[in-house]
């Protein structure tokens, strides 16, 4: 007998919310909240002009069309919360780095693609954006500190960037690096941190359909504190893997050592896949506190994305996959 295992995004037609209802509901929620541009659906209807986004040359690219495959099981986090509760140690160790992060110049922004590739590429962010298929996805985001959000990212699949980069067959890992500019990022003057921030994925992870490069947030160019102008989003892993403000993609043979892994290997490993059963050395990961709702909810294996990514870890059971 053929048993078809339904994957996470595959819901029967009858369960799908009719578009009209979907939009109406979103308008209602958005109406209740103070910010009219809170939700993607409402945004499509109202399209407010944002003064701060006008200067950004990529502002016209958003909102991108939403990919209906990636939806949520929980309410969207309020934009005001998602853009004011940030871990961005380059700008300080508190969650409130909005003001400090505004010092980061994001144009011109050159992205270097190097290492085991057919040809090294150096490309400006706006040229890169022209070559990439932009879309919006709603993802859960689970921080290792046991809080979470549910947010609309705009951007392109990391797999598209990998294809663009044309890595050779020897490439086993993708190493990503954040800008290094202690002049504008005072956190980078703290010399006992292993700057610049580095993160890595296996090639299989990097080309998994979920792996995403975000360049927009809530239908606008992504704010600096959230990792402008481009950041990684790997929603099945703890948030620290999703490196911000990337300037370099290197295809390498050796497993890169991430920023937090270098700082505290026992607490922040290379794999860092979300698993409620495996506690952090200092706290349980069984539950998470959501921004905006301020509720504590159970954490899901692979942050609820097991259907998409569990296969990636077959045969790797001896690795410390969940920390």
């Amino acid at each position, binding site marked *: 007998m053929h048993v078809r295992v339904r994957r996470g995004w595959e819901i029967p037609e009858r369960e799908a919310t009719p578009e009209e209802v979907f939009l109406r509901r979103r308008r209602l929620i958005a109406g209740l909240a103070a910010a009219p541009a809170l939700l993607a659906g409402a945004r499509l209807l109202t399209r407010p002009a944002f003064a701060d986004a006008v200067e950004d040359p990529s502002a016209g690219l958003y909102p991108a069309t939403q990919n209906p495959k990636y939806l949520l099981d929980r309410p969207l986090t309020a934009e005001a*919360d998602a853009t004011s509760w940030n871990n961005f140690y380059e700008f300080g160790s508190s*969650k409130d780095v909005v003001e400090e992060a505004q010092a980061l110049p994001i144009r011109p922004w050159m992205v270097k693609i190097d290492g085991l590739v057919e040809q090294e590429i150096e490309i400006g962010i706006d040229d890169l954006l022209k070559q990439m298929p932009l879309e919006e996805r709603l993802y859960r985001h689970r921080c290792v500190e046991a809080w979470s959000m549910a947010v609309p990212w705009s951007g392109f699949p990391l797999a598209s960037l990998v294809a663009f980069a044309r890595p050779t067959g020897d490439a086993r890992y993708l190493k990503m690096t954040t800008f290094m500019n202690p002049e504008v990022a*005072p956190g980078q003057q703290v010399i006992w941190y292993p700057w610049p921030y580095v993160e890595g994925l296996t090639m299989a992870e990097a080309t998994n359909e979920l792996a995403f490069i975000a360049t927009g947030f809530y239908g606008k160019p992504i704010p600096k504190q959230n990792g402008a102008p481009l950041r990684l989003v790997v929603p099945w892993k703890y948030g620290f893997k999703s490196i911000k403000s990337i300037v370099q993609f290197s295809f390498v043979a050796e497993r890169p050592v991430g920023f937090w892994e270098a700082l505290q290997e026992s607490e922040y490993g290379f794999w860092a896949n979300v698993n409620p059963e495996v506690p952090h050395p200092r706290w349980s990961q069984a539950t998470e506190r959501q*921004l905006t709702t301020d509720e*504590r909810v159970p954490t899901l294996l692979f942050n609820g994305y097991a259907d998409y990514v569990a296969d990636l870890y077959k045969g790797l059971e001896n690795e410390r996959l969940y920390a």
Partner: protein
Amino acid sequence: MPWRDRSGRFSPFKATVFLALFLPALWIAYGYLSGTIGALRLMESLRDIGNWGLRLLLISLAVTPLRKSLQWPQLIQVRRMIGVAAFAYIATHFLLYVIDQSFDIGKVASEILLRIYLTIGFVALLGLSALAATSTDAMLRRLGGRRWQRLHRIVYGIALLGIIHFFMQTKADVTEPTVMAGLFGWLMGYRLLVWLRSDGARPSPLAVAGLSIAAAVATGAGEALYFWLKTGVDPLRVLALDFSLQLGLRPVWWVLLIGLAVALAAVIRSIGAAGRRDARRRKLGVEAPSA
């Protein structure tokens, strides 16, 4: 009543301190209610209230040094009040943790047993509870002054546990716990200076200044050693950073400036006290000894 002195009269000094002890809590409550504290209000409040509890505990430990060096005996009137406030803050800190865990007492208990920094914090809270419970006049009488004092000396250990708890729960930026550890060292060093004197009198302002320098040096050296062991960064580079001020006031300077401020206040106070003594003598028609 916390605003009356021993004779039952209204004491503006005690009343002021009593009200001031509510200010941090009110500030945190305002931040919580207005949302300015941050998106995860409960987590931030939990952290802030614990932080203030520890600060108050250190302030209560500063009463004796300030009383002696500043020749300000009335300060003893507010020591117990500050200690009880520290307990109230830290008990609230624990209560917020229980709320954060959705009142799942089983989870709270298992977390306290499993996570060593929570075990340490909880032991400190238990100790502090014992001190709070024996903080009334009736209990003081029942225990007798000497036994009461001996019991209340465990506050030194409690403060140390609190600082260790703060260190261990910090993810990466240990600036604040480092400042607290340095100040705790200063407070204990002050007691050592008193103990070393045969007459048990207050140490001279010069000795306090020396202690402040020693505590600051220990803070800086301890910090450099900590980062060297943890991340392998050259300790000399960490020390050099202390002098660059590019990261703002580093823990070394906090400890040094607070310590030296006490020494300076002691000098000013001594001059003032000598002046008052002379004035009193003149009033009584006694020649000042130097004249």
